[in-house]
């Protein structure tokens, strides 16, 4: 054990682990189990959406047509680019390039903020159009109640996603500050790797929100 502890360039080995490989796998497994609970959290909403859309297909299609696909598509592109900078950040951390890591993390945070800004503009538009269930609701029509239900699902799903992204941006900024002070030498890159997993997960959730919320009303 003492010999492994002194292994060069691998950092401290927790005493409950036999090898560094095992320690790294445990960290990664723990993160994936957390992401599993996140799939369940978002999964409940996706299921509720599926049920209501099955029961009220016309109202949901009508509601979807009131979203602007331009906002949704631009934000998808922004998130995919942020995943690129995040994967480059993880790489930089693995090789111990902390200056590059700082910049990639800042770029990722910037793209995250850009996403939230576009989302904010979009929410503002919904307020102006009077299509915010519970706060400003001026939509009238034969399917008004169903459309309201769709918009409700929209706000809860994108709101929860936005909250996750906001938390992600804060975490990325904290990590960037630490990387700037040299807090992530190559042997201790695991936290950056875990942050990367979280970021990519939030990206994947959005990849499913785009077709379900924005795209399906376009053709019907």
């Amino acid at each position, binding site marked *: 054990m003492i010999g492994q502890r002194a292994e060069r360039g691998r950092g401290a080995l927790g005493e409950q682990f036999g090898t560094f490989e095992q320690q790294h796998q445990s960290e990664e497994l723990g993160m994936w189990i957390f992401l599993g609970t996140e799939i369940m959290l978002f999964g409940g909403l996706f299921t509720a959406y599926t049920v209501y859309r099955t029961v009220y297909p016309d109202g949901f299609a009508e509601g979807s047509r009131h979203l602007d696909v331009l906002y949704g*598509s631009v934000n*998808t*592109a922004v998130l995919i680019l942020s995943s*690129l900078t995040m994967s480059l950040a*993880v790489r930089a951390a693995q090789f111990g390039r902390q200056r590059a890591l700082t910049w990639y993390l800042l770029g990722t945070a910037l793209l995250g903020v850009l996403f939230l800004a576009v989302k904010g503009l979009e929410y503002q538009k919904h307020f102006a159009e009077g299509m915010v269930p519970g706060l400003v609701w001026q939509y009238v029509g034969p399917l008004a109640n169903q459309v309201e239900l769709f918009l409700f699902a929209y706000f809860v799903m994108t709101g929860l996603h936005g909250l996750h992204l906001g938390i992600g941006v804060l975490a990325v900024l904290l990590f960037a500050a630490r990387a700037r002070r040299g807090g992530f030498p190559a042997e201790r890159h695991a936290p950056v790797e875990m942050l990367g997993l979280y970021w*990519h997960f939030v990206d*994947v959730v959005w990849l*499913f929100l*785009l077709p379900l919320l924005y795209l399906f009303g376009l053709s*019907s």
Partner: protein
Amino acid sequence: MPERTVPVRTCFVVCAVLLVLTGSSVAVAHVDLRGWNTLIALLVAAIQALLVGQFLMHLRWSPPVIRLAAVAGVVWLAILIVGTLDDILTRGWLAVPGK
């Protein structure tokens, strides 16, 4: 050499493919495919999720126990949705006395 580093080229190629897939998904959404639209769009999203998982989240290079943990969450979600739809879609098929 750290374990499981993703080559820079792979990062760029995967993200380019993701962008192209999103673009095609948005383009196809404007064409009426008689009810197949959502299925195709979800299929594209699933391919994108697979790419992100396999390459950017390096599941492709991860040990089986971690791949299993990742798949378990998705399988659970599938059970939830299929089980719920099984109820919703079949309501009213049978006459329930007293209903």
